[in-house]
C-alpha cells in the first residue's frame, strides 16, 4: 500500500497560521476553500508528479506542525529533505524571525537541502498596501545571501504557487541529473554504465 515512488522530499516549514497547508492544498488541488473538501482525507503528506523537460518527477510534500511546542522535533522532519519551503506571512513581521531560525537549522544540519523562502498571503495586499510588513527586496537580499530562492505567493489567487513548486522540481532535475535518469529510463543507462557504476569499489 501507498508505495508510490517519490523522488524529492520537500518539507514545508513555517510558523503556525502562515498558510503552509493552504499552499499545498492550492498547489495540489488548485483550490482555496474553507468549506468541506471531498477527495482528500489529509493534506499532511502529498505526492505530486510534475513534468520537467519531458521527465516526470514526483514531489513528496511533507507538511509540518508549526506550533512552537513541536519545534524541538523539527529536525526529525527535514532529515534527508532535498528542498525546504520556508514560509512566512508577508503581513506579519514576527513570522520572519522563525524563518531565520529554520534557515540556520537547515544550513547546519542538512547541507544538501535547497531553501525556498516563500512569503504567503500576497492577496491581502491587493486592497491595502500598508499591510505589508516585510519588504520584498530585503527578503530577496536575504535569500541571495543564503543561496536560496525567494517567492511571494497567494494561495487564494494561486499566484506564483505553481511556479514555486515547478522551480523545486527543476532545481532537483538540474542538480541531480543522474538520479533522475536512473529512475526514469533505466534502459538508457546501459551506455553510461561504465562511468556510473565504477563508484563501487569495495
Amino acid at each position, binding site marked *: *500500500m*501507498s*508505495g*508510490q*515512488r517519490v523522488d*524529492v*522530499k520537500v518539507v514545508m516549514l513555517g510558523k503556525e497560521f502562515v498558510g*503552509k*497547508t493552504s499552499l499545498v492544498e492550492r498547489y495540489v488541488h488548485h483550490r482555496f476553500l474553507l*468549506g*468541506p*473538501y471531498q477527495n*482528500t*482525507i*489529509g*493534506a*499532511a*503528506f502529498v*505526492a505530486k508528479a510534475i513534468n520537467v*523537460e519531458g521527465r516526470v518527477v514526483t514531489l*513528496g510534500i*511533507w*507538511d509540518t*506542525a*508549526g*506550533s512552537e*511546542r*513541536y519545534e*524541538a*522535533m523539527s529536525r*526529525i522532519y527535514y*532529515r*534527508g529533505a532535498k528542498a525546504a519551503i520556508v514560509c512566512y506571512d508577508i503581513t506579519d513581521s514576527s513570522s520572519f524571525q522563525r524563518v531565520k531560525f529554520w534557515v540556520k537549522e537547515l544550513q547546519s544540519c542538512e*547541507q*544538501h537541502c*535547497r531553501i525556498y523562502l516563500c512569503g504567503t498571503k500576497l492577496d491581502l495586499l491587493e486592497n491595502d498596501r500598508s499591510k505589508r510588513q516585510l519588504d520584498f527586496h530585503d527578503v530577496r537580499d536575504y535569500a541571495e545571501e543564503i*543561496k*536560496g*530562492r525567494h517567492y511571494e505567493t497567494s494561495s487564494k489567487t494561486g499566484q506564483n504557487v505553481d511556479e514555486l513548486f515547478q522551480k523545486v522540481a527543476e*532545481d532537483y532535475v*538540474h*542538480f*541531480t*541529473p*543522474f*538520479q533522475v*535518469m*536512473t*529512475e526514469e529510463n*533505466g534502459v538508457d*543507462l*546501459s551506455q553510461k*554504465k561504465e*562511468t556510473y*557504476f*565504477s*563508484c*563501487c*569499489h*569495495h
Partner: protein
Amino acid sequence: MSLKSERRGIHVDQSDLLCKKGCGYYGNPTWQGFCSKCWREEYQKGRQKQIQEDRELAERLQREEEEAYASSQGAQGTQPSLTFSKFEEKKTNEKTRKVTTVKKFFSASSRTVPKKENQETKAPSPSINRQVSIETEQVSKEFIEFLKPCQKAGHDVYKQCKICLEAMQQKREASIEEQSEYVQDFYHNTAEKLQLRWKMPSEKVEDVMDHIEKFIMTRSYKHVFCPETTDDEKKDLTVQRRIRALHWVTSQMLCVPVNEDIPEVSDMVVKAITDIIEMDSKRVPRDKLACITRCSKHIFNAIKITKNEPASADDFLPTLIYIVLKANPPRLQSNIQYITRFCNPSRLMTGEDGYYFTNLCCAMAFIEKLDAQSLNLSQEEFDRYMSGQSSPKKQDAENWPPDACLGVKQMYKNLDLLSQLNERQERIVHEARKLEKDLIDWTDGVTKEVQDIVEKYPLDIKPKPQPLAAIDSENVENDKLPPPLQPQVYAG
C-alpha cells in the same frame, strides 16, 4: 549547493561525478555525492552521534523516573502504583522472554543450527531446533515462487540473499549498527544491480526489493529485533513507564481536533489504537510501516469527520501523540529502531510511509520531553497530575455520556468523595496544627510577658534601711532595753 539555473539537461562534468571528499573514486547522488566509503564514514558519524544522543536522553529519563519513584515512595498512597509498575515491568520482561522462547521453538531453521545456536543459554533440544517455522517456510516458498518469472535475475537475487543471510549469521556477535549497515548496503547494491545489470523497470525493482526485505528480515528478525547488545529493552520500559505516568493527559491539553463523542470518530480512534499496537506483532519492517500508515489513515478519517475538512500536520501530529499515549504500544522504541535500521531506506526517507513514520518518531520524542509548558499547564498542576495527587478527568465526572458504565461512574463519585474527605482531613490536621502552635505561642507569650515584667521590676529584697534612732519609733531593738520604768509609789 549553488543554484546555477543555466546548467540544463544532463550535461555532467567529470568533477561532478567524483566523490565530494576528493578521494578520487566516483560519488553517487544517493550517497549525497560521496563515494560509498566516504559516505559510510560520514553517515556513521552522524548516526553514532544520534545514537549517543538517544542513549543520553533515555538514561536521563530513566534517572528522572527513578528519582520520581524514590521521592514518591515516601509519600503515602503511591506505594501501590510502585509495586504495580514493578509487576508490569516483570510482566513485560517475561513476555519478551516468552516471545523469544516461542520464536526459538519455531524459527530456528536447520541452516542456522550448527554454529551459534549452542551459545544461546536456553537452547531447546536439537530435535525441536531442526524444525523450520511454518512462517519462515512459507516466506521462503513465496519468495522462490515470486522470483521464478525473473529467471536469471531471480536466480541471482536468490543466491545473493542466501549469501547475505549467511553473512548476517556470521555477524551475529557484531554490533547492531554493523549489521544494519550491512543490510542497508545489501539493499542498495541489489537495487542498483537489478536496475543496471538486469535492466528492470523501477516499479519492478521496488516490488523485488520488497520481497527481498520480507525474505531477509523474516529470517533475521529474532536476532536483530531488540538485540541484547543494545539497551533497547531498557528504553522500551522507560518509554512505557513514561506513557503510563502520563495517563492523565486529555485530548484538550494536546489540542486534539477529534471529538470522541461522535461514535464514528471514537470507532476510528479505536481502530487507530489497534493498528499501532499491532505493529509489534509484525516481523517485516515494511509490514510494521504499513501498520503505522493504517493507523495514520484512521486518524485522518477521525479528524475529517470531526472538522469536516482534511487534516493538516497541525492537526495530525497532536492526534498521533494522543493515540500513542492512549495505546502505549508495546516495545515502541525497539520497533522504531528496528525499522530505522533494517527498512529499505528509499521507502523510509521520502514516501508516504516515511512521512507517517517520521511523525511517529516525532510523537515519541515529544512524549519523552513533554513538560508543563507543552501542555499549557502550570508547573504545579503538571506536578500534581504527574504525582497522581489529582486527576484532571475528575472534573468531567458530571458530564458523562449517558451510556457510561455505572460502576465507573460510581467509582469516580467515590473517588471524588474520598478526595473531598481527604481535603477536609487535611484541613482539620492543618487547623489542629495551627491550634497547637497557637497554644504553644500563647504559653510562650505569657512566659515572656512575665519575664519582661520580672526584668523590668526585679524582685530584689532590698536590705531594710538602718532605722533612725527616733525616739518614738517602735524599735525592735527596744525590746532589748529593759522595760521602761514604771512609776512606783513609795510609801514613806
